């Protein structure tokens, strides 16, 4: 269990998150992708905290922040998606192109 394996795992999680974000058409699915990205980044922080900088435990604090912020952000995002769904009857991001220029 070296640092590298954790970093690799976090990179994999992050890129899976990006792929999900870019590929899925449903807004909720995009949010899942965002969650994955956040988890990947958190894992990265924790790994560095454990292997290179255990004292002080800054990495853990950052991860706690990330978890809290992720929760708040998800609630906002869900309410926006709900409002959008009520108005436009769709949660397909391909159809939500009002800002097209």
């Amino acid at each position, binding site marked *: 269990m070296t640092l590298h394996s954790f970093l690799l795992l976090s990179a994999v999680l992050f890129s899976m998150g*990006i792929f999900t*974000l*870019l*590929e899925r058409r449903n807004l909720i699915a995009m949010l899942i992708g965002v969650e994955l990205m956040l988890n990947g980044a958190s894992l990265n922080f924790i790994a560095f905290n454990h292997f290179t900088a255990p004292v002080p435990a800054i990495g853990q604090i950052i991860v706690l922040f990330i978890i809290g912020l992720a929760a708040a952000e998800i609630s906002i995002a869900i309410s926006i998606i709900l409002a959008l769904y009520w108005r436009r009857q769709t949660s397909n*991001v*391909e159809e*939500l*192109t*009002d*800002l*097209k*220029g």
Partner: protein
Amino acid sequence: MLTLAILAVFTPLIGFVLPMLLLQRQPRAAQAFAVLCSAVSFVAVLALYLQGHGATDKLKAVFLISGGFQVEFGFLLDGFSRLMGLIVALITLCIQVYSLGYMAHDPARTRYFSMLGFFAWSMLSFVFAINLLQVFIFWELVGLASFFLIGFWFEKPAAAAAAKKAMIMTRVGDIGFYIGMALLLREVATFDIPTILDPASGLIAAIAPGRLTLITLLIFIGIMGKSAQFPLHTWLPSAMEGPTPVSALLHSATMVAAGVFLFIRLYPLMAASHATMTLVLVIATFTMILSSTIAMVERDIKRVLAYSSISQLSFMLMGLAAGGLFAGFFHLTTHAFFKALLFLCAGAYIHHYSTNDMAAIGQGGGRKLRGVTLGLIVGGCALAGLPPLSGFFSKEMVMGALHHDGRMLYLAGGLLGAFLTAYYTLRMIFLVTRPATTQTAHGHDAHHGVPGVMLGPILVLTAITVVLGFFGTSLGHGLQQEVEHPEIVMMMLAVGLALTGVLVAWLDFGRARAARVGFIAAFPPLRTLFENAWYVDQFYAQVVTRLVMLTARVCELFETRGMDGSTDGLAEGVAAVGGRTARLQVGWLQVYLSSTVAVVALFLIYLGLR
């Protein structure tokens, strides 16, 4: 002295401004005011002349300063300018009075009299100018006045075209004058005429001969334009579209004489270049013969007089170029009076018979207008150079100068010109006074005669034409010029040729059973050539106008396709690029995210590779 000069020069300006601004609806007041201003100006100039006593007064003040260079404008009151000013003011006054009758029914009289005032101001300022820049400015203003007056009846397309033609042609000459002036400035570093011409300053002598010839040639190009010498002469016959008093004032006596006066004014400069003097002689001789031959076949009385003016101006220039300064100037003086007289008589005929055609005037009973006919005969004989009229004296002086110069070719040209002049002048007189048949005059003009305001100036000018010749010598001595009289043989030869011209004209037109076609009918190709004015106008229309239009077309293409095209193309290119780029804004969230991810990835790769 200064007061008189200012009064003389600026009163006509008031005569221009005030009626134009305030008296547009009171033409009678306007014309009276204009005549009054002319009269005041004339009295002032007369006073200047009589007080002159051969003195030269220079009155000047700084007009503009540029760095270390100063230009002073003012009045140069020497014998030549006083006499010339007197001629201008007197003839202007005669024309103003005459116009009271001639233009009596014209609705735009205010503008007419105002423009005459504008002309008089410009011309007098030109005559009295002390600085070459001042000369140029008023030279141009005189041309502008001519434009306005030729195109006075601007509703007539022919008049508008003639005004344009005069302006453009004299402008071409003026470019030469301007460049010559600039080159002169480079050599002598001043525009002040007395300083330049003063032999003690040595400025002229210091100029290299090649440059001097160039400068004088360029100035002569300006003179060619203004005084209607070949090839810049065709505007003058066209200028006859203007009212006849305008033709009398501008295009015979004063404005076209401005070119000759410039030559006189700058005589030491011009005479310093022998090459230029010779070229002037050549061009003047050629123009004299050219215009005399055209006058021989013209039917319109004003055009005969116009070509005659061209030919007499050439004669003046011939005298000047041959070294006869006073001879040329005296001929300018006498010509101003008898040519103005002839034009006023022509105007009286035109006013009465409503036609310019000499044969028609004659058949309408031309010689019934007695005073006018007397003026016509006196003026015509003066023009032909018959003694004892003034024209004889001045022509003799010019012939004397040509003879003294020694080059027989030009003297022969002058003599031929004298013969032709006498011929076409008497042709004109006979066509008007001894027509083939006489019809009764038609319409209401039959018995109403010539108004007094028109007859008065005619009689005044007739009197002057008769007596002026005898004052030649005294005028010359007054100007401190040597007055050479030609030898008796020369005089007899010239008079003989003139009388021969009279005789041939009599045989062709004056006799009871004359054919009235002129001896030139025996040479049809020549006759065609003369009737088409040597095809100069046609040449200009075909070649020059086409060249100018071609250049204009090239410039237009450059402007629309080149400049506009490139600017528009640039704008359209930018818009197109913008349009393409705008397609990235699809509004589809994931496209934006993809591009963000791509950029970040590239950046990371870049950092990784470093």
